């Protein structure tokens, strides 16, 4: 049985459905991420799981039991708030002891567990400090320690790293993965940062406008987006309007205005004649002065329209056919050389047929 099951959750504010029929199952021990743009209903969904808000319809089941009538303090679910919500009038140690005190645990045991929790997050010498005296990263760790100290079944994290700077964020991401493995508690993690979601999660639910667009493993989400929104939201992606002329067993032939015929992988289904987009990741496109055509590849001649030097890679925008722009990446492996091609240079680009996926409208 899944640890947490959401069945067709709906939550509207007036006429506006912030969460619009969300269903999902979250397994025990999973690092599960809700990913989506601002305002797509992630926090609203999390608040219903925590018990601060109730769905207008639908069910929330924990271990198969309906949670709707259970107040937040009775749910074995803890939240790490985006603002951390550390109690400013209590010391770090008192903050961490709070959930244990609420459970009427004896003084001696509380002290011991608080000490352990402080050790776990490497803040043993900060127990007597007040939250206001800590750095952002330290507060983050106190919030985690406080939420985990009483061993909840499920931990909800609402953009916990959003307030930290890049470097610290990367470090905390690694710590989060390790911590989750160590404690074995199920995490539901909310973020609008797709790289973070891909790096951390076992599974990701991509949300948009209160609905789940796709629920899959990170590599599936990245490589096989189910629709235009997911392809566009996760990473950068060339989205080229296309029409299916012939759909075979495994491959299909697409007709693209101004470019001609392109071979792509058939995602399945009867698609002949349908319109949509060809989604093509820039890093899957080869670019060179001349490229030998291998079997199963699409190849086009064009010229460099523009380029962007990014440090580790250079992004080339190549114009092929009549007015079709395709982004391709080239790693800058040779030192001291910001680019290989200049704007206007003639180039060839190619990609394997299965690098592109056709997304039906």
């Amino acid at each position, binding site marked *: 049985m899944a640890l947490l099951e959401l069945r067709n959750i709906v939550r509207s504010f007036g006429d506006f459905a912030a969460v619009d029929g969300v269903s999902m199952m979250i397994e025990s021990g999973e690092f599960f991420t809700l990913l989506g743009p601002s305002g797509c209903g992630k926090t609203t969904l999390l608040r219903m799981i925590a018990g601060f808000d109730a769905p207008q319809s639908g069910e929330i089941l924990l271990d198969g039991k309906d949670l709707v009538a259970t107040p937040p303090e009775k749910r074995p679910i803890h939240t790490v708030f985006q603002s951390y919500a550390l109690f400013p*009038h209590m010391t770090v140690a008192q903050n961490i002891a709070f959930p244990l005190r609420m459970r009427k645990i004896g003084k001696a045991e509380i002290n011991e567990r608080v000490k352990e929790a402080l050790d776990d997050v490497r803040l043993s010498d900060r127990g007597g400090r007040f939250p206001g005296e800590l750095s952002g990263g330290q507060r983050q760790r106190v919030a985690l320690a406080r939420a985990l100290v009483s061993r909840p079944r499920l931990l909800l994290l609402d953009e916990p790293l959003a307030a930290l700077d890049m470097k610290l964020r990367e470090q905390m991401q690694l710590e989060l993965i390790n911590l989750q493995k160590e404690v074995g508690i199920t995490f539901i993690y909310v973020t609008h940062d797709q790289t973070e979601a891909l790096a951390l999660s076992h599974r990701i639910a991509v949300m948009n406008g209160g609905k789940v667009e796709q629920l899959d493993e990170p590599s599936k989400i990245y490589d096989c987006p189910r629709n235009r929104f997911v392809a566009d939201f996760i990473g950068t992606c060339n989205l080229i309007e296309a029409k299916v002329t012939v759909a075979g067993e495994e491959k299909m032939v697409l007709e693209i205005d101004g470019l001609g015929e392109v071979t792509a992988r058939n995602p399945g289904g009867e698609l002949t004649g349908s319109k949509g987009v060809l989604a093509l990741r820039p890093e899957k496109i080869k670019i060179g002065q001349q490229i030998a055509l291998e079997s199963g590849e699409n190849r086009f001649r064009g010229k460099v329209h523009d380029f962007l030097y990014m440090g580790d890679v250079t992004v080339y925008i190549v114009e092929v056919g009549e007015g079709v722009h395709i982004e391709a990446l080239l790693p800058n492996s040779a030192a001291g050389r910001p680019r290989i091609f200049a704007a206007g240079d003639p180039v060839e680009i190619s990609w394997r047929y299965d690098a592109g996926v056709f997304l039906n409208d």
Partner: protein
Amino acid sequence: MPKRLLAASGIAAYLFLYLPLVIVVAYSFNDSRLNAEWVGFTWRWYKALFEDDAMLKAAGNSLFIALTASFAATVLGTMAGYALHRYRLRLLPVLIMAPLAIPEILVGVSLLIFFVAVNLTLGLLSITLSHIAFCIGFVAIVVRSRLAGMDESLPEAARDLGASPWQAFRLVTFPLIAPGILAGALLAFTLSIDDFVITFFTAGVGASTLPLQIYSMIKIAVTPEVNAVSTLLMLLTLFLIVIASRISPDSVRGK
């Protein structure tokens, strides 16, 4: 140039506010019956004050009323402020704030009519009830502004970590708004102790308070004794306001 202008107008404003008060304070130490010219320094008006039975009685009444009224108004006002914050009702805030804006004389008259209608003998009790009534709104505002400045997620975090609604209030919300409550209480105390208009209407014949006593004395003449008692009253209220602004800077300074 604009900077100097700003400084000058600032000084002018302070002079305008405090010069009359300085004069009162100065004359309270003046060794003359007349508020006309400086004769010499004396404590004698303060001594006279502490030998004046009517004055002492009025001061005792004022203290009793201010303590009782500010305590009751603090309890009720805190509950009102919490309700205003918690349940975003449309009309309630207006209804609780309105008495602060309604002319005091109206409040005084209406309270007088009300007490007569319910057959309550005018005296200490009627004054105290009136003071509670007009102080609640002030306390509610101060407490509400303190609550508004508090991170919403703090009491939620408490609930999330296993606290009942009451525990969340007692262990998290209350300690965080306590400075606001205390500031509200001090504000209520200072409002009550120097209220004249409403007290005047609800006092009846028996009871007198310091402001009423001062008023009845200046009907004859502004004696140095009045200056002395005014100075003491001013010192007390100033002291309380300074403390209130110390413990809850934002709610008193109207941040």
